[in-house]
């Protein structure tokens, strides 16, 4: 009973933590990036101010916007928030851990994307349509790659539950695996595409004809925009937490641990996110954006790596 209560408590802390940290992570990435480009850069706290300002502003709706356009931000935000709450960040002792696995995570992200693409087309502007169609093109490549990655990890560990994967990885019985290295590369590529980062999309402008994410949310304003932007920030945190949880779960607390390990888990989680954000900023600064038509090659590469990872499981020792 005590364990159950504790897991509920950790789950609530986790949900609050991802919500509180997501804007900071985005701000941190922007700050490191502007420093690398020899600009002063806005403070890492700027995204909080942006979101608060947007929440105070009025919503401007197009005349022909339907209920779908108004409902979508809530659906997107909820789906991604729940998904982010499912990825063990500082402890694998979460109340939702037994019921939620990697496949549920992919499904939640997929439904969020579905609503975003529908909302992009709802008002009927040409930019929204372009954005939605491109988002779907990216998803058509990214989702199979993600699923292949999930399959290779699941074959290796024997479960798709994230908490059990983290516990298994941290136990060290798995060793260095080619399949895991390939899965990691595939997941990083998918994460870059899904979060609309360079080289797939440029997150810092909506003044480009090649934009994808910004094109879909161009019609949103006020609290709707705040929710959509918040969901994008949560998604970035989610993918980084996912990579950390599967491939670097060191420092995470486990079922049966007390307060001390959980606090240490929090500290290491913050450290991992800071490192991941800095790495993302360095990568984005050092690379140029791709043409939209090369996105297929990039994500095809991710799919290929994930498939190779799954194939190699069958020649490796002991599976």
């Amino acid at each position, binding site marked *: 009973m005590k364990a159950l209560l504790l897991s509920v408590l950790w789950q609530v802390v986790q949900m609050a933590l991802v919500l509180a940290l997501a804007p900071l992570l985005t701000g941190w990435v922007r700050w490191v990036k502007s420093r690398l480009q020899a600009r002063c850069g806005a403070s890492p706290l700027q995204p909080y101010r942006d979101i608060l300002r947007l929440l105070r502003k009025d919503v401007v709706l197009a005349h022909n916007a339907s209920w779908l356009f108004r409902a979508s931000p809530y659906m997107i935000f909820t789906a991604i928030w729940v998904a982010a709450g499912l990825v063990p960040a500082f402890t694998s002792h979460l109340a939702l851990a037994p019921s939620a696995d990697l496949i549920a995570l992919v499904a939640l992200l997929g439904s969020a994307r579905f609503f975003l693409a529908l909302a992009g087309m709802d008002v009927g502007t040409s930019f929204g349509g372009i954005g939605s169609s491109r988002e779907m093109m990216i998803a058509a490549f990214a989702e199979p790659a993600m699923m292949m990655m999930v399959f290779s990890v699941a074959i290796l560990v024997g479960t798709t539950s994230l908490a059990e994967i983290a516990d298994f990885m941290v136990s060290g019985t798995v*060793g260095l695996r080619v399949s895991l290295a390939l899965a990691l590369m595939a997941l990083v590529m998918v994460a870059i595409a899904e979060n609309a980062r360079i080289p797939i999309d440029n997150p810092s402008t909506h003044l480009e004809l090649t934009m994808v994410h910004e094109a879909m949310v161009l019609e949103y304003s006020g609290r709707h925009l705040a929710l959509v932007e918040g969901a994008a920030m949560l998604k970035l945190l989610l993918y980084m937490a996912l990579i950390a949880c599967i491939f670097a779960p060191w420092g995470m607390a486990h079922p049966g641990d007390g307060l001390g390990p959980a606090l240490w888990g929090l500290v290491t989680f913050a450290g991992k996110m800071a490192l991941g954000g800095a790495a993302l900023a360095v990568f984005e600064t050092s690379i140029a954006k791709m043409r939209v038509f090369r996105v297929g*090659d990039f994500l095809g590469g991710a799919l*290929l790596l994930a498939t190779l990872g799954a194939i190699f499981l069958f*020649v*490796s020792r002991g599976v």
Partner: protein
Amino acid sequence: MSNLAYDAAHLLGALVLMMSFALLYQRRLSALLNAFTLQAVALAAAAAWQGYAQHSHHLFITAVLTLVLKAVVMPVALRRIVVKLNIERTIEPALSIGLTMVAGVSLVTLSILLVMPVTEDATALTREDLALSLSVVLLGLLMMISRRNAVSQVVGFMSIENGLILAAIGVAGMPMIVEMSIAFSVMVAFIVFGIFLFHIRERFDTLDVQKIESFRGESQ
């Protein structure tokens, strides 16, 4: 062999294979040569690690030979050819990248399916090593048939040879003479290729084999 030695050998072999895929993925000649250099470095590292793990010192010689010849001499020479012929920025109208990649994954699957039943009683390391090196050889062949530029066909040929070396270092007790002779025959082949490239260029003004085909006199 301990788990760590096995895992590291496995990772380095897979790195060589990854570089084969990188070769297939690149469109520009200069990027292609960079990927080829990286493949040679990975191969040298794999050879050195096998030498350490198997306690056979001649593998270190293989590693040094690979590093000097394949990671330094050949890329530099090829780059000079490319610069001299002024085709650095050529983007090859090859078979589409996506299709090539799909073909590549099928070839890797094929080589694994082929190696598995043949080596049932071999150790896991040998089996995997053979699967990896057969894949590298097949991907090199794929590179040679899917590219139209003569320089990238030469690179494809060199990467086939990398696959052969990868197979040779994985099998304990492979005599040094085999690796030496492979290395030197490839060196000779490389020189012949180099001379040929200049001659083709002088004669036909292009290195695109598709265009050269019209000179065969069959179409009339």
